[in-house]
């Protein structure tokens, strides 16, 4: 009996086999964050993505990691992902060039509630790299602007050098139908903007708490504090949404790695209504 069992015939339904995508561009965003733009190799099917979903990106010889879609979910043939270079796979990926091939499996996961939020105010609260999975929400909302009430983006970065998508943020800030507030944890000599934690932007942000749908993403600690502050402001806990993150190996609920209490983050999330995870997120080592 062979020690490595040979797998069953691969079929279209085999979710563990990636499709091939070619890198169009690798763009450095900050000292440790970069964006890749991908297109399907040899045509390929157009797949509909929703803001908040993620793909498993496979770098040959290095491994596979989950990365949220950070671009326009409406442009399915052009996949955009932003990630930090923190481990083996991401470091190798950051050094790839236009024309290199990667594997893509997806899209996976639950999306942000852009449908549910129609007719309401939208509050997006992002911390650090958390702005990347939220950027598709802003693209979507701005593309369907008349469907939403007031739209507010609150973004906290560690320092001014860590601000993601800076030029885009400045363009958005200049619009009349969007409120953008950016703060940093630590200022620099040249920084003339807000200094302080992102939660401090919540009390005065221009939205109606009872009518708002809030979507937040960032380090878990930041999301807990943000949820508290939003509730203090009067946003009902059922109208707050969070994007969770856990170790993922398969993204289809088979490997067991991404379990968070009773939830599989890859399948029941990554986007959750906060009332479902409030107890879990406050438990130690869950």
């Amino acid at each position, binding site marked *: 009996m062979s020690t*490595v069992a040979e*797998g069953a015939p691969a079929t279209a339904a085999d979710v563990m086999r990636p499709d091939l995508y070619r890198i169009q561009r690798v763009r450095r965003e900050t000292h440790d964050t970069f964006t890749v733009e991908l297109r399907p190799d040899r045509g390929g099917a157009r797949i509909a993505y929703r803001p908040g979903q993620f793909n498993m990106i496979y770098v040959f010889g290095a*491994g596979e990691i989950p990365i949220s879609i950070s671009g326009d979910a409406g442009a399915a043939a052009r996949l955009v992902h932003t990630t930090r270079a923190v481990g083996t796979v991401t470091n190798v990926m950051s050094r790839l060039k236009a024309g290199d091939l990667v594997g893509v499996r997806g899209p996976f996961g639950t999306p942000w509630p852009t449908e549910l939020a129609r007719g309401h105010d939208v509050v997006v609260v992002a911390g650090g790299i958390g702005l990347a999975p939220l950027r598709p929400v802003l693209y979507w909302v701005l593309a369907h602007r008349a469907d939403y009430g007031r739209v507010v983006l609150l973004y906290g970065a560690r320092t001014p050098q860590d601000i993601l998508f800076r030029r885009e943020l400045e363009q958005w800030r200049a619009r009349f139908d969007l409120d953008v507030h950016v703060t940093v944890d630590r200022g620099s000599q040249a920084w003339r903007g807000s200094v302080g934690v992102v939660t401090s932007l919540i009390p005065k942000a221009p939205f109606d708490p009872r009518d708002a749908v809030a979507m937040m993403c960032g380090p878990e600690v930041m999301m807990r504090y943000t949820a508290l502050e939003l509730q203090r402001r009067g946003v009902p806990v059922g109208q707050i949404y969070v994007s969770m993150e856990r170790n993922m190996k*398969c993204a289809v609920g*088979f490997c067991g790695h991404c379990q968070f209490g*009773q939830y599989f983050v890859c399948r029941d999330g990554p986007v959750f209504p906060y009332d479902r995870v409030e107890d879990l997120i406050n438990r130690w*080592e869950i």
Partner: protein
Amino acid sequence: MTVPESRPGASGTETHLLDPSHLQLLIDALRADGYRVIAPTRRDGAIVHDEVSSVGELPAGWTDEQQPGAYRLRQRGDGALFGYAVGPSPWKRFLHPPLLRLWRARRVNGRVELVPEDAPPPKYAFLGIRACDLAAIAKLDDVLLDGPYVDVTYRAVRGQALFVAVHCATPGGTCFCDSMGTGPRVGDGADLILTEVVASGRHFFVAQGATPRGRSLLAALGCPGATADDIEAAEHAIADAPDRMGRDLKTDGLRESIYAQPEHPRWEQVARRCLTCGSCTLSCPTCFCTTVEDATSLGGSESERRRRWDTCFAVEFSHMYGGSVRLSARSRYRQWLTHKLSTWHDQFGTSGCVGCGRCITWCPVGIDITAEAAAIRQRVSAGLGQSLTE
């Protein structure tokens, strides 16, 4: 899945009488049909599953003695072929292999080719499978077949597998299938069900086909029908098995108690004993966690993606940049037990445990899941420390 009352001579199903030589005919017929017959055998002081071609390879006359952290074989003094409980290795290793190649990739001149796996899936016949292990396979079906995604490898192998089950007559010292509603009688899932009788100088099997496949197999053996006395003897052999369980586990209120008490002091107590070795997850027939890994040839032109078994007891299991979510042994033991006895209900609608007792027997320090569950089922008060004014 509850075990319906399947009696050896249940009306509506033909009951046959087999002797050990008929079992050989059964094995031969299965092999002629392209099945690899997997059965219990005796090796290295334990009863393990392996491919067999002859009845002589089954552990005739052996039984097992199981306690927390202890396992030994002992001779029975009779020729019973199935006179023991369950061994260390669950049947899942055949349906959900410990190491599996998912695909290969070849890099040639900047092009990458994904080479699919085209080997036909193996055809297994499991001889001697027990109710608990059948129930475990049903739970793996819930995980790998009934969700939004399907594990195609599992589906292919599982779909072809044939099950010749045996009603348990000899529950073990760590068994508690009765508490979990998964045995000792075989319920759904088998093709053929046998009851072994060794009594009054006779050694025979009462057999029933439970599926069309099972019935036609049985019919082809050309065995006589079982008499009413045979059927009664078979019933007698297994009637008191539920009372001879080595352990029990009270399930009412258990799911809620576990979920509601992540800070129960018992977690800390068991963590001091637990080595986080993962033996429990290795021997558990329902544990399904896996990981993926890559193997690249030296030149980099070929790489393989493989799936292998993993355990939630490993620190790296919950690793994210910055560290692991579950760093302490306490949190890892809690994760395993909570999943098995509590959150499995939320995910799949049943308990994740079938009461086979393997985790108790094969734990090097003898941690007993039934004792841990009983302790955590006790609600502890939420008060702080101990009052000094009383």
